[in-house]
């Protein structure tokens, strides 16, 4: 047996596994989305693409075209993700920058502080906030005492005093930031850490002000990290349903994930759920491949 075949044989179980449980599973979504449902509204997939029924897909597209419920949910998802991503960058960039550049002898400790949340169960982190933000929780009291509650009420971001968990859009967005920001900070830190300090010194020596050295050297050089980190937080945010469920529990803050979850896992509209899943996957496909390409390029540079 030649060495070449040893390696292919080793790959076989993994390739087989992923083919069945990833590729075939995904094909099943397609066949359900382009299938039909029986009288008990259970999905009847059409396995042959020649038989595909476009009825359910058209229904969803028509709904979106006429500004129906799915459009509302999609736009809300986009808005939530965009705002949460911007906020996460606003908080995450200075943190990553400080850790990479100025943390000095505290660097290990700060890094630990950045990594630990990554490994604390997401739902436990949400549970923590649910306890804090319940009407008699410590967080609610602190926000009240600091005047933040008044500010949010004044800005119209909170509808009643102490009602942080009653279907507030602001709470959902901040919870999304809280939940996913570790995914942003770590790649950002890695990108900033890789920047050669001498390039910034060179810019300074050539007369750049600190601000313009930052804007014209550091920021552009950290762009791959910003983009990779943004994609890494955007992907799970787009598929999230549990965060709104937990911190809002109101249909007013439903994201596309909630709609899919209602239709597929909980409910009896699995065909429409499959269509929406497909739509979500299509929207995210570009982001997914962008990320894969950029990591591949980074790996190639790393090896070089």
């Amino acid at each position, binding site marked *: 047996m030649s060495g070449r075949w040893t*390696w292919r044989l080793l790959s076989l179980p*993994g390739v087989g596994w992923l083919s069945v449980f990833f590729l075939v599973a995904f094909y099943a979504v397609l066949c359900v989305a382009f299938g039909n449902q029986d009288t008990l509204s259970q999905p009847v997939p059409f396995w042959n693409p020649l038989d595909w029924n476009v009825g359910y897909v058209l229904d969803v597209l028509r709904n979106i075209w006429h500004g129906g419920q799915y459009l509302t949910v999609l736009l809300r998802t986009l808005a939530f993700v965009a705002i949460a991503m911007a906020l996460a960058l606003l908080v995450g960039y200075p943190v990553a920058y400080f850790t990479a550049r100025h943390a000095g002898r505290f660097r290990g400790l*700060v890094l630990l502080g950045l*990594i630990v949340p990554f490994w604390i169960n997401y739902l436990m982190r949400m549970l923590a906030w649910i*306890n804090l933000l319940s009407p008699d929780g410590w967080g609610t009291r602190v926000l009240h005492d600091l005047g933040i509650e008044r500010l949010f009420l004044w800005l119209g971001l909170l509808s009643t005093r102490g009602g942080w968990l009653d279907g507030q859009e602001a709470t959902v967005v901040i919870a999304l930031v809280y939940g996913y920001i570790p995914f942003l900070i770590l790649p950002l830190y890695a990108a900033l850490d890789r920047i050669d300090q001498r390039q910034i010194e060179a810019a300074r020596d050539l007369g750049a002000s600190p601000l313009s050295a930052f804007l014209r050297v550091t920021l552009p050089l950290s762009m791959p990290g910003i983009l990779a980190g943004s994609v890494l937080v955007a992907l799970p945010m787009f598929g999230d349903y549990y965060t709104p469920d937990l911190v809002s529990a109101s249909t007013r803050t439903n994201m596309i994930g909630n709609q899919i979850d209602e239709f597929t896992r909980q409910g009896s509209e699995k065909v429409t759920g499959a269509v929406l899943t497909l739509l979500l996957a299509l929207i995210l496909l570009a982001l997914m491949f962008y990320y894969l390409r950029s990591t591949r390029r980074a790996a190639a540079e790393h090896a070089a």
Partner: protein
Amino acid sequence: MIAWVRNPWGRPRWLAVVTAAYVLWSIVPVGIAILFAFNAGRSRTTWQGFSFHWFTGSTGSVLHDPALQSALEHTLLLAGLCVAISTPIGVALGLGLQRWRGPGGGTVNTLMLLPLVTPEIVMGVALLLLFLRVFPGIGLGTPAQVIGQVTFTLSYVVVMVRGRLASIGREYEEAAADLGAPPHDQLLRVLLPLLAPAIIASAAVAFALSLDDFVVTQYLSSDASTTTVPMLLYASARGAPTPALNAIATVALVITLATLTLAFLVYRRFAGGREAVELASLEV
């Protein structure tokens, strides 16, 4: 801020303040949730004194409440099975891919990476439909949950094994080949021992990922007996539960962090600190 603009080589205080505030913001709420696991009373918001009641007490505790006990057992069962399946398959695929020559390698590599970037709900729906319509014989429940978890943990194992293989290089294998070792000896007696720290670490990461997984596990669950700890947190966080919920979350957290710390130490011992940090931050 202005001082920093004038002199960025000085200590930028405001950056330090933002970073400290961020780290506190991200950790203190969880710390408080853990604290309330030790609350003597039934409240999760008002402190009523210290007690181990919700861990070991005779009623409603993690140790004695049937629902909590079952959730913890099922979570650990899934994690064990997931590790047992995804580690060998993932190590083999990692080896195979790293040394793959000829066409097909790129495609397989992309296929392997896709589960890492696919939003979990998409995988959840896909696997749900797969087990409902393609493999109704398996159906939903424990086997489906294990399969689902293996499908996305596999890629992490592969990535970690490949990272270690890349830093080992090919010299050892070539030396073994020059000394006349046949391919399977190169693999079993040279590569695998060198890979051992990565294998242990990737098993630990797979264990932690399985323990923490929520979406795929929830989509593939069937009845109350297949409820895991994260599912329990989701289901009862908004209800009126007791601090036992905080207690069981704390237990799961301790298990996760202990597993990862152990793996981190093993890895650092054998493979060096920098790689270990990359590992801990799952820099894939």
